[in-house]
């Protein structure tokens, strides 16, 4: 209702499916930063996050006819981005295992946990942000996904339920448990 845009996302994708490439550019401009923030919180690397967004938006171009107007466009695009981000994490995990096995004991680097901002304090500024990001990375993937979508991307429970393809009640429960784990992780990082 209060959208600043002339066309909704669903209208734009419909136009793009009919061959209007300008509609594609508009969709890219609407979603590239949102998706970057989502992917970055997921993979914890800005360059890799941008690759994920590039792949997502390229997939939007090549697979535009796969979208059916039964779901919100945002749900569809976040699902693609989430899947690609998970693939990126799996790739990195394999790569990391190989690298660590090739490293000597002395060469391994360990990032020491931050010691400043405490749980219960209002955390803002770069350092606190880094600490929160670190705590997010400690969450299991299914918790990480829902907490990013809810508390950083500010999507509704219904949208998250569609993106992760689990019932609404499960989403609510996962978000609460993810917050509790985040609370514990931040306490441990103190």
């Amino acid at each position: 209702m209060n959208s600043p845009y002339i066309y909704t996302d669903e209208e734009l994708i419909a136009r793009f499916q009919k061959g209007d490439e300008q509609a594609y550019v508009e969709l890219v401009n609407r979603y590239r930063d949102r998706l970057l923030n989502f992917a970055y919180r997921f993979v914890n690397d800005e360059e890799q996050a941008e690759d994920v967004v590039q792949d997502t938006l390229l997939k939007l171009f090549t697979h535009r006819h796969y979208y059916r107007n039964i779901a919100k466009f945002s749900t569809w695009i976040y699902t693609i981005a989430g899947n690609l981000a998970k693939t990126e994490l799996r790739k990195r995990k394999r790569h990391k295992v190989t690298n660590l096995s090739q490293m000597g004991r002395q060469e391994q680097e360990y990032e020491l946990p931050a010691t400043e901002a405490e749980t219960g304090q209002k955390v803002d500024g770069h350092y606190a942000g880094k600490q929160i990001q670190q705590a997010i990375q400690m969450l299991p993937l299914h918790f990480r996904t829902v907490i990013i979508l809810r508390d950083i991307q500010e999507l509704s429970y219904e949208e998250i339920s569609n993106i992760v393809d689990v019932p609404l009640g499960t989403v609510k429960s996962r978000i609460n448990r993810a917050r509790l784990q985040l609370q514990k992780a931040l306490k441990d990082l103190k």
Partner: protein
Amino acid sequence: MDRYQFEDLISEYLEGSLSQLRRTEFEEFMSANNDCSLQVESMRQIISSLNSLPKLNTSPTFMSDLMRRVETAKIAEPGSDIIEKKIPATLFGFTPAYAGMIGAVLIAIIVVAFELIPNQPGQINPPSVIAKSEQQQVLPTTTTQLAKGELEAPDSTTAPKTLPDHDFQDQMILVND
């Protein structure tokens, strides 16, 4: 309400989606346990911190990089020459290997079906070699034997058993005597 139930409801409490009854119960438990109210406050601040994390922007070359990749993808889209050249030749929609296999199976089915068709009167059936040789062995023997008169009545042991008429006649003679 116990501690686990309390923790399960923290998010719903903070988002204001608890029923009035449940909310009162939650607040009563919280006021009775000081660390519970600290936990709720801590979670409220975590949510607020997550909401206010700094937002990232894509790099200045993002759009040009993407458009370059889109142009490459356009060339490889279905309908373009590149894709059409990659499609392997097909025979009635099958690849040559599958078409060959299906053809061989069909021929085998036809041959077997032809073998199983019964003889029709006045029609020479192309029977198997074995069936033919059996016919040739049986028929000429019986016809030649008949012609020579060599064929005898069937042996009593092999012939079907009938009542011995002459036995009764002998007995009747004895009675008359």
